[in-house]
Each structure stands twice: as structure tokens, then as C-alpha cells.
């Protein structure tokens, strides 16, 4: 069982969250000419890293906020959690 620290509510069990995938994927800017390749990279292609992975989760059965979680995909260690709009340095 993962324990995820929601930046709004504190430490909660994994059962309260739903997964939202790779948080490093950026939607191409609106109204900008983009190539098929850029669109592919947004919609389909994923790095699926082994190790540190920045991902989206939603505290669905809690405050319903989207958050970012930095987690190791091999050990499940959670290093840090952020608000969805928080700048990560």
C-alpha cells in the first residue's frame, strides 16, 4: 500500500487516490503550428522511466485536487509531492 502525502490534506492511503500518468508530458501550445511528431509525443509516446518518475495523481476520494508525485517506479519510494501548478526546481 502506497502512502501519498497530499499537499492539501496530508498523508493518506493510496485507496483515496487515482492515477493520472506521466506529469512531464506537456500539451503543445494552442494555435501554434506543430508537427505530427510533436503531437505523437504528446498523445502516445512515453518514456516510462525506471526509477524517479514525476506523475499526476488525483486525490479523488479526498479533496479532489490534482497533485504531482515524484515516485520511484522500481521501489515505489515517494520522494516528494507537489501541488499540480507548483514549479519544481
Amino acid at each position, binding site marked *: *500500500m*502506497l502512502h501519498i502525502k497530499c499537499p492539501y490534506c496530508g498523508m493518506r492511503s*493510496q*485507496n483515496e487516490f*487515482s*492515477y493520472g*500518468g*506521466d506529469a512531464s508530458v506537456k500539451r503543445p501550445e494552442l494555435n501554434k503550428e506543430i508537427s*505530427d*511528431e510533436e503531437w*505523437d*509525443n504528446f*498523445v*502516445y*509516446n*512515453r*518514456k*516510462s*522511466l*525506471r526509477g524517479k*518518475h514525476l*506523475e499526476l495523481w488525483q486525490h479523488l476520494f479526498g479533496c479532489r485536487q490534482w497533485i504531482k508525485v515524484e*515516485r520511484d*517506479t*522500481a*521501489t*515505489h519510494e515517494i520522494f516528494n509531492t507537489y501541488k499540480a501548478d507548483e514549479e519544481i526546481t
Partner: protein
Amino acid sequence: MQKYSIFNLVKNAFSNHENWDLAWKDPTPKEEYDVVIIGGGGHGLATAYYLAKEHNITKVAIIEKGWIGGGNVGRNTTIIRSNYMHDENALFSEFGMDLWRKMSQDLNYNVMFSPRGIINLAHSDAQMNAYARRGNSMRLNGIDAVLLNREQVKEIIPMADFSENVRFPIFGGLMQPSAGTARHDAVAWGYARQADSMGVDIIQNCEVTGFDVTAGKINGIRTSRGNIKTKKVGLCVAGSTNILAEKLNMTLPIETHLLQACVSEPVKPILDRVVTFGAGHFYISQSDKGEMVMGGDLDGYNSYAQRGNLPTLQHVLTEGIAMMPFLSKLKMLRTWGGIMDMSMDGSPIIDKTHIDGLYLNCGWCYGGFKATPASGWTFAHTIAQDRVHELNAGFSLNRFSTGHLIDEKGLGTKTWIS
């Protein structure tokens, strides 16, 4: 190679079975091969076998990081089926069914193929309609499909919950009578033994650390046991696809996720079919040892852990108990996990790549085991002829950019949603 037969069994009994040949050798890697297959799982072994058998290419090495049979080929729930709606998946899988039926004779190894039939349960009128449609599509592609009503299902699996006031009552089901199970370890060992006997080098405990690519052409691979020269490399590494793709500067429409399975304590024969729950994701069969073999959903987030998490297991088994209440009385014997190469439309990729001599076999999602022979057969063809076979033409890598997706379940790109 010693043939496995009743005569050899009796003959070896006189020497206490101490003089059998090793099933496959443990060679040191040579300097150069015609083809190197990375990944000694079912698909890699089958590819090497069909390269030797169908295309007469025997200077082949299989490079395996762990040991033969230690990955997903020994971690699945052994289900074999071709109950797909879309032509690409249906024709490919049905071609595989033929290979499954002949496999024990072909490999001189009893893979215990048991065509016991699979029943997908339906729990609403809408689901019955959807199954009728899928069954019709299957029959148009020459695959056996039978739509069963509630009474017919009850006759076949009376132990399921047919009471009136359940949350998901059984309306009926879609059955593929020719589907079934096989002993997964035997499939790996059988392919390994035959490939080895035809000259393929099976190199275990050897990790690929890099690739030599110059001017868009593959020239060799680097491994923990030295460099190997080759003009053709086939990737068959399932959940590790992204790790090797990164070394090739490729980003693929694949995410690695964890899928769990479990078996109960062995009990007397009660279930002689494969059954899937239609209101969730749960499948069950009974092994020859008597264990109930069960599986279901992904853990739900990217994972390379090869071991699962309890909330998913609890969720999956709750569905199992809803379907067959007697399961609640059984004790759990083992649970385990394997890492899946989940593609973005739920269908596999068997194709060439933009690198000359590099071939890709991945994206098997929940259904890698049953595809073993057909995947090996078509991948061997693709490597040997340097072009795809019509059976795997649809499983192209560029279908994601051209829009020719094969989205069997209509789930889209969120592979963790089940």
C-alpha cells in the same frame, strides 16, 4: 538431441534417469551472430526457434538478463484464446491457435495444451448485444464462438452465483470452445530445447548494456559478457522495452505496468473452463494440480517492481467472490507480479524500426502468453525477410501517427484504466 518418448523414458529408467542430455547448453557468447534476439522469454525463444526452423537461420543468439522461464512466460495465467473482434488481432491469434494445437508434437515436449474453452460472462442486455456482435465478428474470421444464455451458462458453471438479487446477475456469456490453457513453463522449455538443438546459443545471465548504431544501421550490441557483432537485433523484452529503447534514443507508445496473478490452495476438480467476469476484470481457471489460477487488473500506476500491491489484489478477488462465492473459503497459496509492456491502444507492435537491422516486438499488454507461437513465427519472418508478414502488418509502430489504431477495448491511451 535425445527424443522424449516412452522408449527413451523406459531406457533411462534402467540408469535411474541420470544420463539424460541437458535440455539446452550454457554457451559463452561468440564474437558474431547473424541475428541476436534480446530477451529469452516465450516470444524470444519462439522467434529463435522459427528463425531456425522456417528460415534456416541458425547462427542466432538469445541474450537473457535472468534465466529462461523467469520472466512473464512463467508469470502469466496460461490462458490461450483468439476471441478478438478486430481483424488484425483475430487473424493473428487464430493463426496462433493452430500452432498451439500442434505444439507438443512440433516441439517434442508436452506443453499440456488443454482446449477447455473460455466463457466471458455478460451481466446486462447491453453486454449480451456487445458479445453477440463480437461473436459474429469472430465467426466471420473463422473462429468458433457460441453465445450462451443464462441457463446454458448455469449448466456449464453451476458453481457461479446465479441467485436473483446479486449486484451483477449473469445474463449469459460468450464462449470460445477451442480456447484453453497450456503449461507455460513447458512452452519456454520446449522452445528453448528445440532452438538449442538447431544451433541457437541461449546465453543467460547476460544483460544488454548498449547498442552499436552507426549511420542508422545496427552493428552490434554491448553486454555484460562482452560485445557481440551482428547486423540484426530483435527486441523481445516486454516490460523492459522502454529501458532498452532509451539506450537507442527511442520513445515508444508503451508504458510499463504491473499485473498480478495468484493461485489458491489446491482443491478437487470443480472448474473445467476458463471464466472471466464481465462486470470488472477477473479471470479464473483451475490448474491440473487443483489450484484456482486467478488474475485481473493492473496495479494502476507505472511500475517495474515485479511484485504487486494489496489494494489491487483485494479489488480483483472481491470480483472473483462476487462471481463465484465459494472462492471466499479458499486459502491463498501464492501471489506474484510481472511487468507488462502496455501499448497505447492495447494491441501489440511487431515491426521494423527507423534503425536498419533493429526489429521491435512489444506492446503485449494482458495477452502475451497466448501470442507466443504466432508472435515468434511472425517476428522471425519479419527479421529473416526484412519485411512484415501480412499477419503482423497491422501491428505497425507508425499506426499511432497514421491513426490506424487497433483499439480492441476502446480504452484509449490511459493504459492503467481497466
